[in-house]
């Protein structure tokens, strides 16, 4: 990995849409960081819809807000339809240029809001739906969600009663809707992050972006390691960076030589209790998912290198 390209750094550190500090995220929050980075890409011309999730706390309690752009809080499962409604309202006023963003956690996307997300995707409403995924209901006290990896600790899946299913494959679910654009990003890879958000901003129709968002208190690691863990997740194939066009063509950032899985597991205390068996199962889940995507990529689009350039 290189240091970010000059234009990425310039965009992400520009003052043009300064989100205000003083928000209420925990120390080292990957979600708050992703939101800040995304807002740098979006600029001022956007409207957010945020359901019940960490971000509803982070952006500030009444009467304050940290986003610096209009934002609507909504019930847990209602992100996508609310965003669709706002989009339609703007359309009725001829304001096509305003970007409407639904910004929800994994709980509101993988579980509670899934039907509503599916419906909006089915209608191909012109919204950008972003799921920041910290792999549990962190805001309410770390309850297991559909995004929780198999056997990882949460307050409702302790060691004595572990989660038996692997992490839900939200990317394939969304791809089955044949929406114009799906991407997965990690804040540890700013070049890739910016490029995909810029593309998603331009495309019309339902776009879905899946962010890997490490959570120090919920995933139980030292705050300073947020980016390190996100980077290890990418480098060890835990979180593949990909793009899917129209549900068909998949490009995958290839990781020919996966590294750092051991450290990824070791850094997070939610994996502390892992037996050799658990560890093997975890790795096997990752490999299964990776190889499905890898085969798909080879068939349809291809594999890319680190900066999105196609590998020969």
């Amino acid at each position, binding site marked *: *990995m*290189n*240091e*970010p390209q000059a234009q*990425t*750094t310039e965009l*992400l*550190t520009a003052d043009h849409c*300064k*989100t*205000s*500090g*003083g*928000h*209420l*995220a925990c*120390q*080292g*929050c*990957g979600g*708050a*960081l992703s939101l*800040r*980075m995304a807002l740098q890409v979006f600029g001022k011309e956007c409207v957010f819809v945020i359901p019940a999730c960490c971000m509803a706390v982070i*952006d*500030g309690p*009444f*009467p*304050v*807000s*940290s986003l*610096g752009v209009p934002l609507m809080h909504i019930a847990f499962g209602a992100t996508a339809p609310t965003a669709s*409604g706002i989009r*339609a*309202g703007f*359309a*009725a*006023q*001829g*304001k096509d240029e305003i970007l409407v963003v639904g910004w929800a956690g994994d709980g509101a996307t993988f579980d509670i809001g899934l039907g509503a997300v599916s419906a909006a995707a089915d209608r191909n409403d012109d919204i950008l739906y972003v799921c920041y995924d910290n792999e549990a209901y962190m805001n309410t006290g770390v309850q297991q969600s559909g995004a929780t990896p198999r056997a990882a600790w949460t307050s409702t899946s302790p060691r004595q009663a572990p989660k038996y299913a692997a992490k839900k494959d939200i990317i394939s679910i969304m791809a089955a809707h044949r929406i114009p654009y799906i991407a997965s990003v990690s*804040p540890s890879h*700013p070049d890739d992050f910016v490029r995909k958000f810029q593309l998603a901003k331009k495309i019309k129709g339902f776009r879905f972006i899946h962010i890997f968002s490490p959570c*120090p208190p919920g995933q139980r690691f*030292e*705050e*300073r*390691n*947020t*980016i*390190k863990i996100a*980077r290890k997740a990418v480098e060890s194939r835990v979180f593949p960076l990909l793009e899917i066009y129209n549900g068909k063509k998949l490009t995958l950032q290839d990781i020919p030589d996966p590294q750092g899985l051991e450290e990824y597991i070791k850094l997070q205390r939610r994996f502390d209790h892992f037996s050799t068996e658990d560890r093997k199962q975890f790795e096997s889940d990752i490999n299964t998912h990776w190889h499905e995507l890898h085969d798909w990529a080879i068939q349809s689009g291809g594999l890319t290198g680190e900066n999105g350039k196609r590998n020969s």
Partner: protein
Amino acid sequence: MRKHPEIFSDAALRHIKTGGTKPPGEMTASELPPMAVSWSSTEHLPVGEWKEKAPKYVRGLSPCLTHCPVGNDVEGFVSKVRDNDIETAVKLLLAENPLPATCGRVCYHPCEDGCNRKELDGAVGIRAIERYLGDHPEFKGSDIWQQAKPSSGKKIAVIGSGPSGLACAWGLALLGHKVEVYEQKEKAGGLLRYGIPAYRLPKDVLDREIGRITDVGVKFFYSWKIGEDRIIKDMLAAFDAVFVAAGAVKTRQLGIQGENNNNVWSALDFLNTVANGIIPDIGARCVIIGGGNSAVDAARSARRLGAESTILYRRTCNEMPAHQAEIDDAIAEGVIISELAVPLEFILEDGTLRGVNCLRTRLGEPDSSGRRKPLPVPGSDFAIECESVINALGEMVSSEDLTSNLQLIRAMKTADAWGKSMHPSLFAGGDFTGGERTVAHAIGGGKRAAMAIDRFLLGTKNESLERYRVGGGPASLASYLRSGDSEVTAGGIRTIQFDDLNPAYFPARERAYLEKHLLESRDFEFSEVEPGMNQAQAIEEAERCFSCGRCTKCGLCQIFCPEGAVRKNNKNDLMIFDSHCKGCGICVEECPRCAIEFREES
């Protein structure tokens, strides 16, 4: 307004248009239907109070800085080359070192031995970059002169124009003093001209470097001998201070029979003769006794004169004090190294040298130098036939020349690290006073003496010069010139190790490799062995530098701060906005070069 038939009925649209109210987009807060709306920002929330530790930008030292005996701002000039700012790079380099083209060729680069990059994929080729800058034709001594101090009216004599004398003269000139250099030989350079062979340091390169020193007003006087033209007492009376760097020019005796034969050379005499362009008659076979750099220089020079040369060394190649790269090159050029052998006596026939009788040794327990002691093996006598022998046992100060001059002997024996002797205005340095005998150490010593002399002539004598040492090691003339602490000479500064860095941002990148021009046939061939870099190669190599411990404004701390608390002030410096920083430490963890430190909140 555009119609959107799926969502709004015509009746609804008519209501929005004509219902007596404004369109929703133009409503003010009070006109909206009742709901909770946040109008103010979180900016005033004092979330910074959550933190237990606070990140601080702290300059650290890259190990190349503390490893350089000269005190070059290594990281400084390398990073300027990386930014393609060659002019500033040359100025940074010349402020510390008047002989970059020389050091760029012959220095044994301790900086590269210290370079953190060696833990990843090989040290940065610092010496080659220094050579590129030293060879750059566009910059003259007067360029750096413009940064220097105004004239002080003081006059200093420098005895000896080797690297130490030249460095002292340069430093004093930059500090605004008048300098006269007195040299025994016909040209300046000392060991650089008469000891180091031309295939390692071409003489025109040396001439250019000395030209730069005359550019800044230093005067040279040649063919001058200590104790002949002027005695030291007169000199001390005529000058405000005197710096002696007369070198170590006498080869140690072998102490065996036949040593005074005409065909037994001392290494320095031999190298001196070759440097003067005279081809000495050494016959077809030459034996060199010793294992240091002058032994290897002599052996490779003898090869170039067409002789078969054999180095006789009492330990093994692994213990040879000569630099490994030099030994490798010598072997590649066909020099034979006969390990574990000591000379017993020379074989003479009617006064003509025929060979050397030798004895094998074996290695015993380590001695005080840490190397294993060679022990003779009885009955292992053997003879090597040869027409000439070069004694390269090592050099020492020629005390015979000094016996009439007690002042000098006292100065030689009492000089401290800054060259100060018992006599207040007499200073000494370089090989003359001992210590490590390398070009870089000699330059470092000369520079320190220049600072000590300046302090003696003008300064407050109680103030210690130690504060101008970089990380407690080599002295920095540039910060002395500014007469103040610089970032790198500040006390308590830590040296950055590889483990402190974040290697995630440094992908592997091979070190530049330049094909050497080694001697292939037995031709008279003293052309330069090592090639130089062009600008593109130098920049590419400089890009491998981590800039350990120095913020390069890469912006990662700003990108990765979840709070947006890292900002640039109006001077474009990064700063941390304390009342928003929650102290997560991502910036500390992610900084590629360890320029941010986590400190407990006081």
